[in-house]
Each structure stands twice: as structure tokens, then as C-alpha cells.
């Protein structure tokens, strides 16, 4: 929604396109800088993996934010959709030799299908009931996978080709962010936001509430599936214990810390949480205690997260870019 507010300042076609172009240009610069860091060995393999994980987690948190933040439907089952994408894609690439993109597409599609199937009945529930139901569904997905011998059961699926590379995750991340940004700034995204703000008023404005809840849930699940596909191909082995509700909580922490209803927030949240996890890898308890206290104090003093809802205009998400955009306009 912050982006939505911000659009006002760029709501002519040329200004919107200029803004998009600048976002893309910055992404290219960032990409080139990181890629250069890799090739000049400035970034070691530990941080290389973590940069890839940050990108994947941005995909996960942005897609969860679409459901939880923009549409206001509190889901705790995101890891389940991630698992579906991961397993579908590794079957394709490992057992059938398909390329990664095929795995991502089919993994995302299967997760989306499941999201739609689950969303239709479940999204009638409200608030904390929806949260606990989606948590349960995510766990059911995981337990079902754990009982399929074909994918290795509890022991995990081994022999996955290492197909996830930095360019793949980076490009996918940018596509995801643009997709969600454009979605929330369209009439469809506004319908989702209206559902979050006031369901009765949204319906009175001609918005089919169920349709948009399910739409957001399905799109969110699709990107979670794609994120899962990328995640799986970072490792030689995946197993169902990577997709427990703790993982869903992890994405929730990113979204809540960064800010509900803010893509910038999701990026920041994913970055902070992943980097912190990496930095504190040797002290896992300590890391979780920090998250715990951060969540609690955030709810006391800043329940909307670092970025979030209205504050976003002031704490402009693309502050730098806004500045660049002004410069661009002066030329």
C-alpha cells in the first residue's frame, strides 16, 4: 500500500515507466556489483550461499506479504507451498533431466493449484483461526511428502543437481517483486487491499471478496513454489524437515519485522533475518532469542513493522530512487 500511495507522485504513464526503468537500472547495477564480487573472489562461498538465500527469502517474504500484509489474510502455511514447489521441481530435474526453469514453472503451478484448492474453503475463516488452519495445512503437506517413498520419505530426496545460480535467483527475485508491485498497484491489488481494510465495505463496492482472497493466496502460493524450486536446487539433498511450521514462522518474522503491506519491508526483513541467521549460525539459541524479543517489542512499539502501511511514504521505500527520479526529471 505504501507503494500505492507513492504511485500518486508518478501516476502519469511516463512517470510510472520512468520509475520502473530506474528500479530496473538499480537492480542491474546491484546485480553487476554482486556478480563482480563473486568473480573477483571478494565474496566467499559462505556468503555467496547466503546472498542466494537472501534472494530466495525475499521471494518468500514478498509472496507471503501479498497474503498477510496486503490482503490481510493471516497465513502460517507458506513453508508447505514452498515444499510442494521444491519437491515437484526436483522430481523433474533429477528424475527426468528437465531444466531448472521447467521445475520452477511446474513447481509454482502445482503450489498455486494447491493454494487455490486449500484457499477456497479455508479463507472463509478469520484472523487467528485462519492462521492455525493454514499452519495445520502446511504441516499436512509436509507429512504427506514425508510418507511418499518416491521422493525419499523422511530421509529426503538426494542427488539434486546444483542448478540454482546467482543470476537465476536474482532475476527470479526481480520478476517476483515487479509482479507483486504491479499487482498491488492495479485494480486487482486495490481490491485485495480493500478486503483487508473492510470486508463489508469492499463487498458493497462490488468486490467479490472470496475471489480476491483466493487470488492473493494462489499468487502467493505460486511464488512460494517457485522459491521452493530455487531453494531445493541449492543443495544436494532436501528433506521434509526443512519445511516445518518453524520455516513458515521464519517467513512470518521477515514480513512482520519488515512491515506488513510493504514490499520494501519484505526485502529488508528477508535481508536482516537471513544475514542475522548466517552471522549467528554458531549460536542458534541466541539468534532465536533475538527474534523472539524483536517480535515482542515490535508489537509493543511498532506493530506495523519497520516499513509498513502509511509510514512508508515518510520512510520512502525507494527513497534513493525517488531522488534519482527527480534528477532524471530535471535532465
Amino acid at each position, binding site marked *: 500500500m505504501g507503494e500505492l500511495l507513492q504511485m500518486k507522485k508518478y501516476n502519469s504513464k511516463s512517470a510510472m515507466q520512468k520509475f520502473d526503468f530506474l528500479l530496473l537500472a538499480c537492480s542491474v547495477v546491484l546485480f553487476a556489483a554482486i556478480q563482480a564480487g563473486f568473480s573477483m573472489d571478494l565474496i566467499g562461498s559462505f556468503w555467496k550461499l547466503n546472498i542466494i538465500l537472501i534472494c530466495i527469502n525475499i521471494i518468500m517474504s514478498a509472496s507471503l506479504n501479498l497474503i498477510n500484509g496486503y490482503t490481510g489474510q*493471516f497465513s502460517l502455511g507458506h513453508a508447505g507451498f514452498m515444499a510442494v514447489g521444491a519437491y515437484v521441481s526436483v522430481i523433474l530435474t533429477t528424475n527426468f533431466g528437465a531444466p531448472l526453469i521447467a521445475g520452477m514453472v511446474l513447481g509454482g503451478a502445482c503450489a498455486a493449484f494447491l493454494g487455490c484448492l486449500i484457499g477456497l*474453503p*479455508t479463507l*472463509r*475463516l478469520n*484472523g*487467528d*483461526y485462519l*492462521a*492455525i*488452519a493454514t*499452519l*495445520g*495445512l502446511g*504441516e*499436512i503437506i509436509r*507429512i*504427506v511428502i*514425508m*510418507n511418499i517413498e518416491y521422493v525419499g520419505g*523422511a530421509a529426503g530426496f538426494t542427488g539434486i543437481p546444483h542448478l540454482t545460480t546467482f543470476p537465476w535467483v536474482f532475476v527470479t527475485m526481480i520478476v517476483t517483486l515487479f509482479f507483486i508491485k504491479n499487482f498491488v498497484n492495479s485494480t486487482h491489488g486495490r481490491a485485495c487491499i480493500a478486503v483487508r481494510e473492510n470486508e463489508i465495505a469492499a463487498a458493497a463496492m462490488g468486490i467479490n471478496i472470496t475471489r480476491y482472497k483466493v487470488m492473493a493466496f494462489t499468487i502467493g502460493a505460486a511464488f512460494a513454489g517457485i522459491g521452493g524450486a530455487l531453494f531445493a536446487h541449492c543443495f544436494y539433498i532436501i528433506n521434509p524437515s526443512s519445511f516445518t*511450521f518453524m520455516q513458515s*514462522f521464519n517467513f*512470518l518474522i521477515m514480513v*512482520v519485522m519488515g512491515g506488513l503491506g510493504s514490499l520494501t519491508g519484505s526485502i529488508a526483513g528477508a535481508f536482516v533475518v537471513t544475514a542475522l541467521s548466517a552471522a549467528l549460525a554458531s549460536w*542458534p*539459541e*541466541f539468534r*532465536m*532469542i533475538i*527474534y*523472539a*524479543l*524483536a*517480535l*515482542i517489542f*515490535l*508489537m*509493543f512499539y511498532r*506493530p506495523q513493522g519497520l516499513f509498513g502501511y502509511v509510514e512508508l511514504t515518510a520512510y520512502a521505500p525507494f527513497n534513493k530512487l525517488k531522488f534519482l527520479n527527480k534528477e532524471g526529471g530535471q535532465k
Partner: protein
Amino acid sequence: MDFATLFVQQLINGVSLGSIYALIALGYTMIYGIIKLINFAHGDIYMVGAYVGFFAITMMRTSVFPALIISMIITGILGILVERFAYKPLRHAPRLSVLITAIGMSFFLEYGMMYFVSPTPRTFPAAFESSGISLGSFVVNGQQLLIFAITIILMALLTYIVQKTKIGKAMRAVSFDTETAQLMGIDANRVISVTFALGSALAAAAGVLVGIYYNSIDPLMGMMPGIKAFVAAVLGGIGSLPGAMTGGIILGVIEALVSGFISSTFRDAAAFAILILVLLFKPSGLFGTDTQEKV
């Protein structure tokens, strides 16, 4: 073992597991009834209860019953502190903010405990020796008898407190309508504290009993039973005390039967499937009608 024997044996195991769920579910249901919060940290309160019991038995050399009482008192106080510190400041905040805080509190207890006692599981001392009884070809072992006995006593005690005492009546009043209860001169904060204390003490008892039953405790032991107990509370009808008791027992029995006849790996899935079916088709649960007494 033939089918009937296995069935009855699983039934016995199910009821003992279900008693544990029921004890935890009571706390969930009381807390939900009174402040409309799914207290995600409740399962971790149960874990703390198990550890307090463990240290009472191993370090203070007490026997089972004093350990149980010590654990219930200390954990009850912990429950009050958790509410005062984490939930009370958010009394008027959106419910999802409180839910997120509860998730945070859950992490805090889990990993805070892990920090102090290390993640490795501890072997709970075999503090309760009893040969148990055998009924024909089934066995009810001593630990199971202990679980049944303690559960029945605690439930009777809770029912007495809620039904007959002044504080119990205040709890029911606050649960029914907090604002009106306050207008009638009831100190809602005190009632909420008492509710957390009672709920936490019951969870602590469940923790100690589980330690005795399974002989092993660890800092993350509360995660699954916590969520399962919530399922039990929903199944019975959230806010209803008899509902939580029945829901717990039913859930325990279903899980035991699924483990015994299908596969133990589907045990958790069965619980979640029940949760979703109940939420979708009968969100008020078994006992959660409007006329049902709520606490």
C-alpha cells in the same frame, strides 16, 4: 496380538496421551475464553513445567508429588509473568498483534530454556515405580494409572474452583463480558492473572506427567503438544471446559488408533485434519453452543 486386543491397548494409550492434551487444552481454552488469544506460548509453559519438575526431582531430591506441586506453583507464577509482561500491554491492540507476540513469547521460552539447559534431551528420572495392573491381555502401566489419577483430580479441582469459588464466578463473568464484569466491580486484571496461573499450573502438571511417561524432555517438546492441545480445545469447543477435557481425550485416542493401525507418521496429520474439518464444518466444536458455559 489380535485386532481387539490391539484396539483396546491403543485405547488405553490414547486415553493417557489424551489426558495430557486435555490438561494443556484446559489452559488454552480458559485463556482463549477470557482474552480471545491463541496463546502460542502455552505449549512452552508445559515444557517449562516439565523442566521444573525434572530439577525438583534430580536436584532437590523430592519425590513425584512434591515435584508436581512445586512445578505447578513455579510455572503458574511464570504464566502470570508472561501475561503481565507480554500480553497485558497489548490488551487493546489488534488480535493479530497479540498473536504475533504470543509466537514471539513461544520462541523466547523455547530458546531461552535451550540457552540454559542445552538442546540435548534429558532423561527424566524414573521417580514413579509401579507395576501397574494387567486386565487379561492388556496392560495399564503405573505411569498411565498416575496420569489418569492426577488428571481426574486436577479436573475435579478446576471444576470446583470455576463453579463454586468467588474467583471462579468472576472468571466466568469476565469471560462472558469483560466490560460489564468490570462495571460490576470485578478486577479483570486479577481474574486474567488467575486464569493464566491456573492454566499454566495445569500445563506444568501435564509436563511433569509426560516426563514420567516418556522419560525424556527437551526444550522444544512443547511445540507439537501445544498445537495439538489447541486442536483439542477447538474440537471440544473453544471456551468450554468440558469441551477441552473431551476434546483432549478424543484427540489422544484418535492419534493412538492412527499410530496403531495406519502409521505413526500420520499421527500429526490426523490431528491437523481434525482441526481443519472442525473449523470448516463445526467451528463451535462439540460443546461450544451458545448455551454452553464459558470460561
